[in-house]
């Protein structure tokens, strides 16, 4: 049997509590800005050190201060350049300043926080990920043949080839970079539309939604806000046709409303909501057997505005009852 892992960038991690939770992997487009921010931070740190030493030597005017300052800059430069990432990732739980800004974090492939040795490995091998460097001569023929400009092709190629989007340093250290979102709001689609409970009350009470259908309904309800009414009907049509037939609903029922009503009944309906105020829908029935009756009765008089809203016509139903502002965004 083939594993049915979703085709996306999530990675499942099993914790010591024996819970499997999912991380979302960070790809090159999130990691590159973090890398550049870190590069700027390193350069600024070195520059500040140079300025401070120059200022100190200038103010005191002693040659010794200048010499010691020069030495301090050299050693500081070496430490900042090579060990900035190591120190930050070790002490700040897998994050550097750039990673904090881009909300990403380094963890081991098993989902645990990284240790000092792993931070050192992945940061040292970073040089190999930036390979091959190209020479300035590529742009200006008279430049010295020093290989200065890193292209990062090695890291990029390896990243696209590995399942966890790891660069060489990550592979060596056994780490991966995940997105570390904070402040997520709890997403539940609210239903404020009076037609929905009314329609849901016609769904047979003994009908039980299967888990997979429940998932589909939730996904649909959370995303329908972003779809135009014709698109909603188009998507809902296939699923709604079978359901409509099963519930013996009339064929011109808006499929979007049917799925939404089923969502409401699956997730939001409560015993307290049993007495639904049908409002103008009073007397309207979506059932097939009532369709002929309604047709006979309704032909002479004007169908009410809400009934036309339930029935899918050529024109999109008025959006005012399903005003997106009245629902929480997923």
């Amino acid at each position: 049997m083939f594993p049915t892992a979703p085709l996306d960038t999530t990675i499942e991690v099993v914790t010591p509590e024996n819970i499997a939770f999912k991380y979302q992997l960070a790809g090159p487009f999130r990691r590159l800005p973090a890398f550049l921010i870190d590069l700027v931070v390193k350069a600024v740190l070195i520059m500040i050190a140079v300025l401070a030493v120059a200022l100190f030597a200038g103010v005191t005017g002693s040659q010794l201060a200048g010499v010691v300052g020069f030495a301090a800059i050299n050693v500081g430069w070496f430490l900042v350049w090579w060990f900035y990432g190591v120190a930050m990732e070790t002490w700040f739980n897998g994050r550097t300043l750039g990673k904090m800004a881009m909300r990403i974090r380094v963890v081991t492939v098993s989902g645990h926080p990284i240790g000092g040795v792993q931070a050192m490995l992945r940061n040292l091998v970073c040089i190999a990920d930036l390979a091959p460097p190209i020479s300035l001569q590529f742009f200006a023929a008279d430049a010295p043949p020093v290989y200065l400009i890193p292209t990062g092709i090695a890291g990029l190629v390896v990243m696209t080839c590995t399942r966890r989007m790891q660069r060489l340093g990550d592979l060596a250290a056994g780490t991966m970079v995940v997105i570390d979102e904070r402040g997520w709001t709890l997403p539940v689609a609210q239903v404020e539309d009076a037609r929905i409970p009314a329609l849901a009350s016609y769904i047979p009470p003994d009908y039980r939604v299967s888990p997979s259908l429940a998932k589909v309904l939730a996904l649909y309800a959370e995303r329908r806000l972003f779809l135009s009414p014709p698109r909603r009907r188009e998507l809902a049509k296939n699923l709604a046709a079978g359901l409509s037939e099963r519930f013996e609903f009339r064929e011109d029922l808006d499929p979007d409303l049917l799925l939404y009503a089923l969502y409401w009944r699956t997730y939001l309906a409560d015993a307290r909501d049993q007495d639904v105020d049908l409002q103008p829908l009073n007397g309207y029935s979506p059932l097939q057997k009532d369709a002929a009756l309604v047709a006979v009765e309704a032909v002479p008089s004007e169908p009410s505005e809400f009934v036309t809203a339930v029935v899918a016509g050529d024109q999109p139903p008025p959006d005012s009852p399903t005003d997106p502002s009245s629902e929480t965004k997923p």
Partner: protein
Amino acid sequence: MNIVSLLEQRRHGWEELELLCNQMQNRGRTRAKAAGAARFASLYRSACADLALAEAYQLPPATVEYLHRLVGRAHNQLYRSRNFSLARSVDMLVRQAPQRIFADPCVHVCALLFFGLFWLSMLLGMSEQRLPDFPAQVVGQAQLEQMESNFEAELNAGFEHYVMMASFYIRHNTGIGLKCFAYGILIIPCIFTLAYNAVALGTSFGYMARDSTIGGENFFEFVTAHGPFELTAIVLSAAAGLRLGLGLISTTGLCRGDSLKVNAIRAIPVIAAAAVLFFLAAITEGFLSPSPLPYTFKAMWAIMSSGAMTFYFVVLGFPRAGIDAT
């Protein structure tokens, strides 16, 4: 089932957990110290349970995703990174590194390659009669002239020069060593850097050993003291790098990623030893080598450092049981 009322019951706990996560992320601990940590742990466990039950509850996917994120965040705060420990570092340098270096075929190959090429190019560089242009072809005329002018005068530098040069060597030479290590994962750049350094250094040595060269004696007086440390450090950093690259190729039955990881862990003590040697070499090169101290003293230092390294690599490194136990 009413999902809203169910979530209302649970969300207070989740929000509190989020708050504690924020506090721990910003300050490294919760505001309420021990009580907060205990509360955090209990909230984390219940969030884990909620996540495990999410499928059974038939929670909407977006809510399940929220729980995944929440548990992930809390997990990251609960299991934090381990910092460096001094005891572990000392153990790595004194016990693990020499044994690994002694037994590692990568070190043997790199040492053979480096010193073989070094001696060969030194011989070629020395043969003034047969190959007069060899050094100029290898390292360039300009560099040869600069070396000659550098070592024309007697070695006698001031204190300022020592401090400045030592710090420069720490940055420059150790940087080259670390670069050599990093490139080891790609194998070819590492071997190239090692071989290039061997040939360039060997040729320079050979050229300076020629009778006709000016400042040859001063040159050898300069390099004697720090040579053993520096050359060994180059070999070790390349060997550590090569170990990474070899891990990718020779997997010994492991999957490629795991093999790389295992080899990287084995390379760490070697590169740590190389870094220490680079540091010692830089200090020697900065303070002792350019000083006007008598040559005997510098030669003594070289013999002593070679002896210490022999002790380190051979006596401490001699195979013992349980090298892989850690």
